[in-house]
């Protein structure tokens, strides 16, 4: 049995979600017989890791610091094995712009988009390019911060009038924002876990919001606000295509251990578009990865056990 540090909480806007994920994971680890060191990530993270010297770190930290490779880099520096994707994959996946460029370059379908930093607008007059962008993407346009998880800061611009305010809102969360073509369709999530040296796509979850016209931040984390259908009621052929696409993105971004890839199934044409990959997907009661695992006959404790087993040694130690 191992001494496992569970990294959770932190300073990001997804702190509450992360605390929920972390608490659940801790329970599972204890049931599995491990010694748990819960760490609410803050200024004393390194000091605490140095003092406790865990055998392994389970990263349940969502959002900034947890998904963008920051704590992974620290764990590398300290020589502590950790769960999930390595630093470079975290950087690629957490920056939606990098991820979408990588997908587009590879020919993976992702909704058409443009991305700009604040400086492009402030110093280079990017605002003057907005009409051309709007013409190409067509309304409604989804405007979102490049790095924010969940749905915080995501706005729908239905007309040109909405675009500036939507950009201002998105810039509240990040210095880089994305304008993306809106795909009208069904919201699918393919979770993937590493297994026997390979990767295994789990049954697809469809998230169906009960009230809002958008699968929003609130609905995503509250029991009863969203219906989850798993396995999603879609044709086998579509499910197969979605899983294959998700695996391709998982590999393309270099994900490891586990991840969740979000897709849209476009109404009428049944085309699939990859929105993003999440390297630290939620592990709360309402999260999609645990539901998918459950549908595959993998209970939560077993899922946590597998995630732990897939933890990789730091690159420095492997070299």
């Amino acid at each position, binding site marked *: 049995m191992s001494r496992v540090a569970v990294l959770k*909480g932190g*300073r990001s*806007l*997804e*702190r*509450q*979600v992360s*605390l929920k994920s*972390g*608490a*659940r994971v*801790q*329970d599972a680890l*204890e*049931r599995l017989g491990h010694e*748990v060191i*819960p*760490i*609410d990530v*803050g*200024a*004393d993270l390194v000091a*605490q890791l140095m003092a406790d010297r865990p055998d392994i770190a389970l990263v349940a930290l969502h959002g900034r610091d947890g998904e963008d490779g920051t704590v992974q880099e620290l764990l590398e520096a300290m020589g502590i094995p950790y769960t999930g994707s390595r630093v470079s994959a975290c950087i690629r996946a957490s920056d939606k712009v990098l991820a979408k460029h990588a997908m587009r370059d590879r020919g993976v379908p992702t909704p058409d988009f443009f991305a700009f930093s*604040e400086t492009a*607008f*402030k110093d280079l007059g990017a*605002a003057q390019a*907005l009409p051309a962008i709007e013409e190409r993407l067509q309304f409604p346009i989804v405007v979102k911060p490049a790095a924010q998880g969940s749905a*915080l*800061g995501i706005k729908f611009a239905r007309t*040109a*009038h*909405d*675009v*500036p*305010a939507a*950009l*201002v*809102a*998105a*810039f*509240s*969360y990040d210095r880089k924002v994305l304008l993306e073509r809106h795909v009208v369709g069904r919201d699918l999530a393919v979770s993937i876990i590493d297994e026997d040296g390979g990767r295994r796509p789990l049954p697809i979850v469809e998230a169906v919001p009960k009230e809002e016209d958008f699968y*929003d*931040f*609130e609905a995503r*984390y*509250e*029991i*009863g606000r969203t*219906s*989850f259908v798993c396995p999603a009621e879609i044709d086998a052929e579509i499910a197969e295509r979605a899983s294959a696409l998700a695996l391709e993105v998982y590999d393309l971004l270099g994900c490891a251990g586990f991840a969740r890839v979000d897709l849209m199934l476009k109404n009428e044409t049944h085309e699939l578009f990859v929105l993003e990959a999440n390297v630290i997907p939620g592990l709360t*009661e*309402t*999260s999609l990865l*645990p*539901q998918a*695992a*459950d549908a595959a006959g993998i209970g*939560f404790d077993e899922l946590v056990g597998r995630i732990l087993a897939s933890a990789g040694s730091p690159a420095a130690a492997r070299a």
Partner: protein
Amino acid sequence: MTIDESPRSRPPRSTARDIERYASLFAERTKVMKSSAMRDLMALIERDDVISLAGGLPDTSTFPPDSYAALMSTVAADYCSRALQYGPTEGFAPLKRCIVKVMAAEGTTIAPDDLLVTTGGQQVIDLVCKTLLDPGDVVIAEAPTYPGAVPTFCAYQADVVQVAMDRDGMRMDELEATLAGLERDGRRPKFIYTVPNFHNPAGVTMSLERRHELVRIAHERELLVLEDNPYGLLRYEGTPLPTLRSIDRGEYVIYASTFSKILSPGVRLGWAAAPRPVLQKMNIGKQSSDLCSSSITQFFVTAYFEAGPWEDYVRSLIEIYRRRRDVMLDALAEHFPREAEWTHPEGGLFIWATLPDYIDTTDLLARALRENVAFVPGRAAFVDGRGGSSMRLNFSGVGEDEIREGIRRIGEVVREQVGMYGTLTGARAVSTASAAPGTDRPAAAGGPRSGAAPAEPAQPEADPALAKILRLPANRKAG
């Protein structure tokens, strides 16, 4: 900071399969008991390094620890067995006599038998809803309304209709129009909820004329009014006005107040004064909620009133809060851009500021938290998604230096967003408010309102209409 979540004490978690099972068990009303992204943002406010202008907290650090110790000793010596025992649902008689004194200080005469001691003023709102509302019943509230009342109304599945305010409080013409509209639809509101003094969150006070008008309307239409008056004694300027209860003489007004702001929210004691038949039903409702409020704190408050002149502490609070209000008003004038507007409260704890409508204060809060400062986004004060560009700022809970610094930081991120919007729309860059230092007059009204058209810099207005400050529609469709 490290927090041990004490995993050993937590029961086993559910499996994913259980989710729908639980969901099917939830009562219908929980569907409107919304959590929100805002709540998750608010979780970050608890960090030590955040200057929070978000709370509604009185400054309890001003209460002398020696007095607290002495009062607790008195409770132990004089009331020990009773303090440790259950009490009557309606509250202990000695405490009711204290309440009579507090209400008299605002010119309201009340008989002890007309009082129900409650667990904070919040319980009055809950008990009134519990007593009066069936699902779908209409409640009329101000726009904006006390954010803490919104979840209570929602929990009882009320249909909340919000009526516009201006600098004199709830607009009676709007109220009449709303009532007429409801009547046409065959609907009669169960009660009208109002915070007449130093409104939370709007910071305005209902004028004497409107108070009489509201009571007249209530009598004519035989409607109940819930008068929520937690801050009435915290007046920093102007002439005190009579309570609705004193004008109404106990026929249609249910009066709610609390010891939270004049002594301590930690004692969790408030009270209701209501017409007897209503009070009796509320009493029964309270029995099912908590049997009685804390006996210990009831005797604590009684001992406090017996120990000396309670008004002295209130006066000391008034001095502290008045200075803090002035500091905040000055800081707003100095640091907020001219496109921002805000109210000038004569008392209470809150200022309501409104930004150009292209700024969403929920998103702005996320940005402000990066600068370690927080406020309450305006949407919390509406049931219909309005208030998106407003914010509630509290000036009682933190010291003067923190208020200055907090407003400076918020002002900086607001100016950043105004500037970005100007860049995006081709409007001219943000300029600082033109109000002279030391004045508290909001600067300009207006500013860029249209995303399409370049905005001209707004000109200062001497007396901006409060309805505009409160970002209210000209006509609110009833229903």
